[in-house]
């Protein structure tokens, strides 16, 4: 019996979302990044299109976060003490976008609080250092996030930044700031299909256009709940392809953040011998978490280590370019 390759028929597609604005578009970026548009499951080109490859955002911070792994400091060198140098190094490492993290009191180590004026200054500096589209995430403390991100939104008006993160307990102020100043938001929910949809609906109801919302279903790292994130993303993407409008947002996930906060990545001594080489383990952890989530529909993966960036970039290229024969 001859083989006919089965093709799934889908009625929906993921929305396209563009991050960053060039001069002509009211910003200062030299390039913009468009994600989404899929009408197939990831990389299955025989049944639909994937007009834009998944993209890599590289996470940098306004100052070296005290709770980050020393391996990251080793990898980036002195650049981590200067956001401008760090942004340039991230761009050189192959980033498609930059994610600037504003550190909070804990990460600062000295207990100091970031101010709105400082946030404006560092965002301005990073925008000057790189022409890539920018995402800015607050420290993850509701009041502080609101204060800092409102200032950042105003400072970078028209740049089509991604502001994050919006959560169901704290989204109104950030969404309003994005609306007022021409930015996008990252809509984050804890690994649940319905919660992800709900927050998209709430954000839309405030009035932000759908092409300015990234869906961040969040994930666990490898070994720490990746299977939940993986399946939630797979279900969201299948729902999107089957026409459920409120799931049709491109998905952003943060395997770098998840992977690098673990003992596997942070600690080199006093761990079981079967865990192997520290650096290899940490990079493999970030890479495998990312590559697995690319299979479940990630449109943007946020990474931290230069070796992970190189590997994931190369993997995406090959996933996007099927050769005719089997050899890669």
């Amino acid at each position, binding site marked *: *019996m*001859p*083989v*006919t*390759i*089965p093709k799934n028929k889908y009625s929906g597609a993921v929305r396209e979302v563009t991050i960053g604005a060039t001069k002509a578009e009211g910003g200062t970026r030299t390039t913009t990044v468009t994600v989404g548009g899929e009408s197939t499951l990831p*990389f*299955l080109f*025989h049944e639909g299109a994937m007009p834009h490859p998944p993209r890599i955002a590289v996470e940098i911070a306004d100052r070296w976060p005290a*709770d980050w792994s020393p391996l990251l400091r080793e990898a980036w060198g002195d650049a981590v003490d200067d956001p401008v140098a760090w942004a340039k190094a991230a761009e050189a490492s192959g980033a498609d976008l930059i994610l600037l993290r504003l550190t909070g009191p804990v990460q600062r180590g000295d207990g100091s609080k970031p101010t709105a004026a400082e946030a404006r200054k560092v965002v301005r500096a990073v925008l000057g250092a790189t022409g890539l589209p920018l995402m800015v995430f607050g420290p993850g403390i509701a009041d502080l996030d609101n204060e800092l991100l409102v200032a950042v939104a105003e400072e970078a008006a028209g740049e089509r930044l991604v502001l994050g993160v919006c959560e*169901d307990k704290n989204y109104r102020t950030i969404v309003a700031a994005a609306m007022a100043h021409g930015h996008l938001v990252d809509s984050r*929910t*804890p690994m*649940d299909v319905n*919660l992800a949809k709900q927050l998209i609906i709430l954000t839309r109801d405030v009035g932000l256009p759908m092409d300015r919302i990234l869906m961040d279903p969040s994930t*666990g790292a*490898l*070994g*720490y*709940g*990746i*299977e939940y994130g*993986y*399946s939630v993303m*797979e279900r969201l993407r299948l729902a999107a392809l089957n026409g459920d409008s409120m799931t049709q947002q491109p998905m952003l996930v943060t395997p770098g953040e998840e992977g690098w906060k*673990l*003992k*596997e990545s*942070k*600690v080199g001594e006093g761990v*079981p*011998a*079967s*865990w*192997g*080489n520290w650096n*290899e*383990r940490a*990079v*493999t*952890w970030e*890479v*495998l978490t990312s*590559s*697995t989530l690319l*299979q479940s529909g990630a449109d943007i993966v946020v990474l931290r280590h230069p*070796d992970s960036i190189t*590997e994931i970039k*190369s*993997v995406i290229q090959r*996933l*996007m*370019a*099927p*050769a*005719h*024969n*089997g*050899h*890669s």
Partner: protein
Amino acid sequence: MALSGLEIYKLLPKTNCKDCGFPTCLAFAMKLAQKQVELAACPHVSEAAQAALSDAAAPPIRLITLSSNGNKLEVGNETVLYRHEKTFFHQPGIFVRVSDDLPLDEIKARTAEVDGYVVDYVGMPLSYDGLAIAYASGNPEQFGDAVKAVCDTTHKLLILIADDPAALKAGLAAADGRTPLLCAANAENWRRVALAAKNAKAPLVVRVDDSDPSTSSEQRLDGLAKLTEDIAKFGVDDLVLDPGVRGFNESLATITHIRRLALKENFRALGYPVITFPGEGATSQLDEVTLAGQQIAKYAGFVVLDHFTEASAYALLVLRANIYTDPQKPIQVEPGVYPINNPGPDSPLMVTTNFSITYFSVANEVESSGLPGWLLVADAEGMSVLTAWAAGKFDAERIAKAVKESGASGKISHKQVILPGHVAVLMGELEEELPGWEIKVGPREAVDLPAFLKM
């Protein structure tokens, strides 16, 4: 092809005797069509009907078993494309390849490395399944010696990779008492290789080669299906597929086609597990691990690696365990109070959830800190701290209930409880729920606990 419920019904006795546990033959037929029951549940089917139905009753992806000195690996029998639809049942076997042209000492050393590797993950010991010995020497006797060297070093499972039947025979003789996977039959050699498999009652890989770049996916799978049909007719039923593609995209697409054909179209000639060789499609060791990871998530039945390192083994084994976890049954631990490092009445009381990954992360950290403590595991329906909190399963009320009902206060002389940093917002409410208690906020991540406890 799969039979519909009505087609199956026509073959049943139609007596509605209920011996199968269903009210009517039709109801039973419907369940059978959905593969939710076994034909054997009806004791009255005629032999003729049984033959006609066996095709419809067989699992869409054949179960393949390897064995060795009491070790057993079962692969196949999968029923879904996405793990959320039900679960993935049989984890892919992971093997490390050694070549027979290496010195025997080195073969033994590499085997011992794989053999001795075991890593603990949430209380489960994880390890690779075996060794794949590749025929590169051109000398069947040397292949036999290499297989013997491996067998002398490990009780793990074997794959014998040789397209020369003489080498396979030498390998099988050296692997006496084990059932290895033989690899591989192709369009040229299949009669002789299949004979060796038949005599040894060993499962066999069927391979189409990828030398012609103009081959379409259809042609490739057509060739593979034709070969498996011929070999099955010849009398070897336990087959494994190697569609001959190696790169990231081709591997994903082709293995997905095979899985869908087997499950959705009940395409028998491709209803077998798939074997992959990620090292042949990779540019570096990290790249091999990445491709292997893709294949573990997307439907491989056997994965043969060319490299072994502890760090990569740890990562791949954890990924395999995660992807094959039953989504309907989150891995949980019993709620209650757990003593760590012989705590006394003045040791700290820390609260967390009963999601096993959370529990083990926290417990491991407290243990490695060397400091005694009581770990109070609250029933959060098997969710992690953040997820449970967002879902309302780890709120002040539940935590207070855990504190009161666990018997924790009988074990300690103080009234202090440490809350995970991620739920610091619960502090106020918890103070109201637990009058007289002092609520302290711990770190967000388990890894920061030792430093916190030492403060």
